[in-house]
């Protein structure tokens, strides 16, 4: 059977077209393979970059955390240092007050100067403008020799044996009312903020009875107690010294 030329031509054309199609498919496939490889490379590179960035972020977060810890430690150290500085300044002020009180009492040459020093200490260092300075007479009875801010009838009753103050004076011990009597409280003879008895050995040479504190004072502070102790010791010695001087002058 002879071949039909048209049919043969058709088959050849289909074969060629199929080959061409196959060739294009191979090319496309190759292109896609290359594209996939490129994309895979890019993906790997990007993944690496992401990992690097993530490591960088982690490192930065760690550094930030360390810095934050160091900053907190520094702030705490600064606070502590400031507190210490304030405490030292407060201690310096306290020492200055005690030094000045001691200096004034020991530097006083006569009774008037001692009384003046005691008054200034009570007003300016303790912060009380309602007080009386008492001294015993030869018979042992107490009398007011100087005062500030207290009414006359109050002063008249203060040194009597029936006075609530008599017990504190007789005890020869420091009496402190705690909580202290403040400016807003009522003035009460039986409630002195402090009664400092100044004595040398068994002999009482004077006493300071302090009543309401100044408005800016919220109570008795440790420094106040130290000033009371200092008054009890140094003012006592100063008054005793003057008393001896007066006795010597009397003999001469």
């Amino acid at each position: 059977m002879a071949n039909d030329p048209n049919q043969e031509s058709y088959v050849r054309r289909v074969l060629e077209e199929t080959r061409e199609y196959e060739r294009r498919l191979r090319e496309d496939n190759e292109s896609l393979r290359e594209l996939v490889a490129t994309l895979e490379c890019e993906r790997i590179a990007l993944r690496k970059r992401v990992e690097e960035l993530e490591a960088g972020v982690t490192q930065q977060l760690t550094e930030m955390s360390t810095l934050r810890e160091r900053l907190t430690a520094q702030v705490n150290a600064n606070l502590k240092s400031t507190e210490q500085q304030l405490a030292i300044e407060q201690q310096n002020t306290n020492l200055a007050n005690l030094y000045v009180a001691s200096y004034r009492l020991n530097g006083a040459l006569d009774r008037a100067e001692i009384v003046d020093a005691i008054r200034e200490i009570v007003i300016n260092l303790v912060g009380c403008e309602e007080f009386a300075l008492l001294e015993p007479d030869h018979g042992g009875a107490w009398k007011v020799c100087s005062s500030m801010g207290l009414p006359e009838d109050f002063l008249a009753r203060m040194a009597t044996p029936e006075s609530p103050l008599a017990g504190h004076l007789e005890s020869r011990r420091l009496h402190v009312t705690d909580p202290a009597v403040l400016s807003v409280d009522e003035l009460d003879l039986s409630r002195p903020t402090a009664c400092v008895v100044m004595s040398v050995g068994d002999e009482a040479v004077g006493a300071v009875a302090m009543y309401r504190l100044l408005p800016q004072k919220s109570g008795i502070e440790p420094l106040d107690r130290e000033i009371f102790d200092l008054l009890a010791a140094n003012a006592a010695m100063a008054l005793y010294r003057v008393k001896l001087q007066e006795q010597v002058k009397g003999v001469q």
Partner: protein
Amino acid sequence: MTQRKKILLVDDSSTVLMVEQMILRNSPFDILIARDGEAGFETAVKERPDLILMDVMMPRMDGFDALREIRAHEEIKDTPVIMVTTRGEGVNIETGYTAGCNDYVTKPINGSELLSKINNLIGS
């Protein structure tokens, strides 16, 4: 070389003057002293201090009058003045500010508070 700043302490109480001097002892200021308001005003005119610590209750001229004199004097009217008051009640403080004070401290003097107020007004 810069000149050291001067602080004038005006108080009739030797105790307070000593305490103030001790508080300021380690500070970089030269200290001047006057014992009443009148002497304080005269010293301020003569010495031109950088700051004045002025007590209220004083003989001859009290702290408020001395402060008014200072504020009325052309050459020293701008000098910062800290009033040192025994009583920290509102009326006293108001009188101080009306007279022209810049700040105030109450007795017993707190060293840290005083130094802080001085530094606020004239630096250390």
